[in-house]
């Protein structure tokens, strides 16, 4: 049991590491185009491939697919070569690996990077390129970046979790996300880059 949860914790930490990387750069390249070619296209592919996945996993991917169709229509943005390359990575995962690798890499890494970008864009001049700066987009994206943890906890085998970690780390390496950028065991972590204690009203 504990090995499974060590792997789940690693999947969770990899996702946080990807988010910290985006925060450190004050945003990424996420746009509505990413929802179309990554979210929308890949969830269709995943549904085609993972017909034998547990029913709640299929329900989740179907729901994510509906959300992505909605996000894809919120704003108009230009084609992104980066989005196409990332979609290519995830398509290879879908072709070669089982659903836990797909959930670990797409919603639990890529979607987390998109969510973090929306934190950086929100209320700024570029907010209308990311569907996740809207209330609904934010809530959907939070759901996509957390619900798969429950599904992996309950349905993935130890071997599948092991493979999912390896695939995540390949993605992080491809995206040049440095190691140890969000280390939950580092006691100084919460003080890094944070704001000083303050009160505007005081």
């Amino acid at each position, binding site marked *: 049991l504990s090995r499974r949860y060590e792997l789940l914790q690693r999947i969770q930490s990899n996702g946080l590491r990807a988010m910290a990387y985006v925060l450190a750069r004050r945003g990424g390249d996420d746009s509505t185009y990413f929802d179309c070619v990554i979210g929308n296209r890949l969830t269709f592919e995943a549904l085609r491939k993972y017909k034998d996945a547990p029913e709640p996993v299929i329900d989740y991917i179907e729901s994510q697919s509906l959300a992505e169709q909605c996000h894809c229509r919120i704003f108009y943005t230009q084609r992104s070569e980066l989005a196409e390359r990332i979609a290519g990575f995830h398509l290879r995962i879908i072709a070669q690996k089982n659903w836990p690798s797909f959930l670990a890499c797409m919603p639990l890494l890529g979607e987390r990077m998109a969510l973090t970008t929306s934190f950086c864009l929100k209320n700024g001049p570029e907010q209308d390129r990311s569907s996740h700066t809207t209330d609904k987009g*934010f809530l959907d994206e939070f759901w996509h970046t*957390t619900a798969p943890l429950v599904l992996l906890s309950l349905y993935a085998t130890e071997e599948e979790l092991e493979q999912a970690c390896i695939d995540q780390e390949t993605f992080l390496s491809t995206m040049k996300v440095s190691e140890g950028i969000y280390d939950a065991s580092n006691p100084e972590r919460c003080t890094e880059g944070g704001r000083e204690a303050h009160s505007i*009203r005081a």
Partner: protein
Amino acid sequence: MSSTIFDYTYRIHLNAIEAMREPALNALHARNTPYWDAQRARLSKLAIDLYGRSMPRLVRHFLENHIKDEVKHAAHVHDRDPIADQVFSLFEKCLREHGLVSYFSLILMEERRALAQAILEPDANDPHEGPAETLDEFYHASTPTILIPLLNPSIDVIVQAVRDQEAFFKLLEVPVPKSPWGPYFIGDEEQVIER
């Protein structure tokens, strides 16, 4: 894993997402302040005091990180908030009487509500307004989803956790959601570009 356990575990997750949107988001005009963070630090310390000897290492690790983060967030100037006192009195009762699964189920709601307030209702005094604190809050608002299954709850324990979440909705004076997030969100399209 029985499908009943899965259903309740997923329900806990969905209830916690419901806490991120109206009517729960701004219920009772209760806004997260550093005082709320201080209370969360106090309760996670209490959780270690009560159950530290028997809890799995990853659970303890999370609680220790949670305390450190919340102490940092609580360093900002703040006043006592009577609604926070009611909320955390409920949390403390559930932690003492029902254990860690109930506590994590409630923490998921509270942390997610605080994260959503920081993102959707920005306020200069919000301790989670900075990017690093936003990420801390995401960590607190997501990690318990894997810690609850790790605690391997019985049906009785997990049903109690859902009841405790419902008690939190009632305390906030909002209806317990009947059609949770997830597959049922269709129809919300009119909210798409509301900010």
